[in-house]
């Protein structure tokens, strides 16, 4: 495939796909509540509207607030460049799993700084809750990626996701995919952990951190979040697709198409899940995360058992 086609398809997936993904989640939720709901491309209009609004800033802010959103978005773009979340990419750099995990942590750190810089109490406690949550969730994500690296004998994500010996490891792919998906629910503040549409500040986790952002800053924050959602969903969709051993033998553009359809299906599934489950009490969240860690542990053990060919 020519480089121009590769570039344009990659840029299209990075720019167009994340808002579409969120739109699909919202549309599914609306349909399940018997509403027509906004069109799936509504997030584009929302983002466009945000760029035209005037900004309101708190008096106590210093430059960190501005810096945080920019650093957050650029880190997420770097992640989109590192992680093999779509099969067609202009480059595939060496992406160690721990680099990726700590890049996620860097993005989170700057979001927290931004939330605390605004001087609002809600921002601060949103930040503290988010840190607690991510502290709990990080082992689950680490273990899931480690289990994949065990079966591929490499810590390079690119090598893991182009790995093509599928004798007995489909259970590992399934467990790791489930674990990454559930982690993304916790990490991005989706339903069982945090309600993204809540309007009560006391129950917010992620929304509390974005309360003080407005106009272009909010645009950057929102887009960062959409892109992160798409990255996580694409990773877990790829894990699920690799349960089917024939996936690795397909042509790249067929793989790309399947992954994108998979991401949209996962988005619909997120919408269904958010309409069915209730938000967990904050004290119950560690228990939910413990189940995610269990799934990751199972996946690591199965990977170890499969790899040593007992």
């Amino acid at each position, binding site marked *: 495939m020519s480089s121009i086609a590769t570039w344009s398809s990659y840029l299209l997936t990075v720019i167009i796909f994340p808002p579409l993904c969120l739109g699909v989640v919202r549309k599914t939720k609306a349909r399940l509540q018997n509403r027509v709901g906004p069109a799936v491309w509504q997030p584009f209009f929302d983002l466009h509207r945000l760029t035209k609004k005037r900004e309101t800033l708190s008096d106590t802010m210093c430059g960190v607030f501005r810096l945080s959103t920019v650093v957050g978005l650029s880190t997420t773009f770097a992640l989109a460049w590192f992680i093999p979340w779509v099969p067609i990419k202009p480059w595939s750099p060496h992406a160690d799993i721990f680099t990726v995990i700590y890049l996620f942590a860097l993005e989170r750190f700057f979001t927290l700084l931004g939330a605390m810089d605004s001087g609002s109490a809600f921002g601060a406690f949103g930040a503290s809750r988010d840190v607690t949550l991510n502290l709990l969730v990080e082992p689950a994500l680490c273990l899931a990626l480690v289990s994949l690296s065990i079966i591929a004998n490499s810590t390079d994500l690119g090598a893991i996701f182009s790995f093509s010996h599928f004798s*007995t490891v489909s259970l590992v792919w399934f467990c790791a995919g489930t674990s990454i998906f559930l982690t993304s629910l916790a990490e991005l503040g989706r339903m069982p952990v945090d309600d993204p549409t809540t309007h009560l500040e006391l129950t917010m986790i992620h929304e509390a951190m974005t309360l003080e952002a407005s106009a272009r800053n909010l645009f950057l924050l929102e887009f960062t979040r959409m892109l992160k959602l798409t990255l996580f969903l694409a990773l877990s969709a790829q894990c699920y697709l690799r349960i089917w051993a024939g996936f690795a033998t397909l042509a790249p553009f067929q793989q790309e198409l399947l992954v994108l359809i998979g991401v949209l299906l996962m988005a619909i599934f997120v919408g269904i899940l958010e309409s069915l489950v209730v938000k967990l009490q904050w004290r119950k969240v*560690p*228990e939910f995360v*413990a*189940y995610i*860690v*269990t799934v990751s*542990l*199972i996946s690591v*053990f199965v990977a*170890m*058992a*499969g790899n040593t*060919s*007992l």
Partner: protein
Amino acid sequence: MNLSAPELCLLMAALVACLTLGSLHLSVNLGLFAIETVLIALATAFMGGITGDRELYVIALLIFCFKAFTVPLFLSWISDKLMAQRDIGSFLPAPLSMHLCLILFVLSFALAKEIPVSHAAGHSWPGASAGISLLLSGLILMLARRLAISQVVGFLVIENGIYTFALTQTRGMPLMVEMGILLDLLVAVMVAGLLIFKIQKNFEHIDIAQLKDLRD
């Protein structure tokens, strides 16, 4: 690693037993116990297919009827009567005991590899590791839970573990012995159920942590 059908069933049963530790709801515990026992009955039937032993089919049917069906129903009936939906709390938090159990699951793999295996059909060390793991999860269940009904569930899981170990290591027990064990088990559960009623009547709770003081 290539697993035969009975081994796969037994390993899945051991995994389900690990998951049982994760919930404090009695109905979930009993449901998972029923699934675990159905898997063991399936493994017994598959084993009958492999070894050509007709008696194993009968044993599988008996396990399915008594252990997987009657016993959980009876226990859930008791918990309904006593209005005990949840274990009051365990000495170890539920998720942690689940993780501990998973680690023991892996340790039992290492343990089972050391057991000398006869080379007869259907006798294998993954099955033995499932047996050891089931036994240990039953032990943790009994240690970590405070409600008398959970103690009975823990006892039943231990029994499942011993049965699994016997099934995979020896040629299975004779039909008469197995029937005797099942009957004993049924009677034991019935007696335990009656005892639980009695405890509830005398002490107005079924929390075994508070049964340390003697009373006349």
